[in-house]
């Protein structure tokens, strides 16, 4: 199977981060440029979860960077730098999203839990000898070439499937699986419990898997 880069992206250690923050405060331009390169993409992805257009998302990210500069002197390192930056993005994006009527109602975090991961009709019912077991197994993707799973067309299917998700699920899966944030970072940035984070991620991954299955198994 192809790379597991999403999970390999390591977080800097606390002392690396303290060092980076000190350099930013001292006005070190290459340090800021490196920070922008590292976080711009994930920030844009998160902002896209809240606002309608890419142009507005870019404005949100731009404004968030100004917030980072304004606030860096007060950053105390109680969360990771990325969590802190993402919180700034979320706060600005929520304000913009409200104006655009695409904000995430916080009730959404609680109410999306009941939908099953897989269509219940795919499992045998009580009248059957093995209730709750597959009627027909899902396909094996092991023999598929990498191009089938990771090719442009497939990644477009994945991108569309993310777009279809309810907002809270979309933001969580984008942060975790696209941007490579840890569960802790997501909880810190969105102010949700670990349990909520896990449920939202589970629903979102299940939805994307189903879309891929329709695409790959036809």
């Amino acid at each position, binding site marked *: *199977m*192809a*790379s*597991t*880069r*999403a*999970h390999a992206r390591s977080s800097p250690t606390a002392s690396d981060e303290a060092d980076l923050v000190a350099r930013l405060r001292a006005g070190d*331009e290459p340090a*800021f*440029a490196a920070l*922008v*390169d590292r976080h*711009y*993409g*994930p920030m*844009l*992805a998160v902002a896209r979860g809240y606002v309608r257009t890419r142009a507005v998302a*870019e404005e949100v*990210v*731009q404004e968030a*960077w*100004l917030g980072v*500069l*304004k606030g860096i002197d007060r950053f105390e390192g109680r969360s990771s730098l990325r969590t802190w930056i993402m919180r700034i993005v979320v706060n600005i994006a929520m304000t913009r999203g409200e104006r655009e009527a695409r904000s995430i109602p916080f009730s959404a975090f609680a109410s999306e839990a009941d939908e*099953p*991961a*897989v269509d*219940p009709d795919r*499992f045998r019912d009580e009248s059957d000898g093995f*209730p*709750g*077991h*597959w009627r027909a*197994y*899902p*396909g094996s*993707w*092991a023999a598929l070439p990498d191009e089938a*799973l*990771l090719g442009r067309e*497939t*990644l477009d299917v*994945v*991108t569309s499937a*993310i777009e279809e998700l309810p907002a809270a699920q979309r933001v969580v*899966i984008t942060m975790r*699986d*696209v*941007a*490579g944030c840890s*569960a802790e970072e997501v909880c810190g940035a969105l102010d949700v419990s670990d349990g909520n984070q*896990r449920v939202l*991620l*589970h629903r979102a*991954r*299940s939805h*994307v*898997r189903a879309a*891929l*299955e329709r695409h790959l198994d036809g």
Partner: protein
Amino acid sequence: MAESAEHLTCREVVELVSDYLDESLPAEDTTLFEQHLNFCEGCVWYVDQLRATVEALGEIREEDVPPEARDRLMGAFRDWRRS
């Protein structure tokens, strides 16, 4: 979670796969989950599908910083440093 402490059905297993991949499943559920996979090829394939899904998600490229945005940000940084 599981209706019976003895075993999980496929329908229950699919609800646990995401947590399993993240190693956030409680130990007792992990045991039941892995016991199920030992005899159920369909669920092994399902787990592989979800793992492949997560890998595909990781392949979506976040774009590079657009040059104009980068210039604006570096300008903002210099202004901030002077202030």
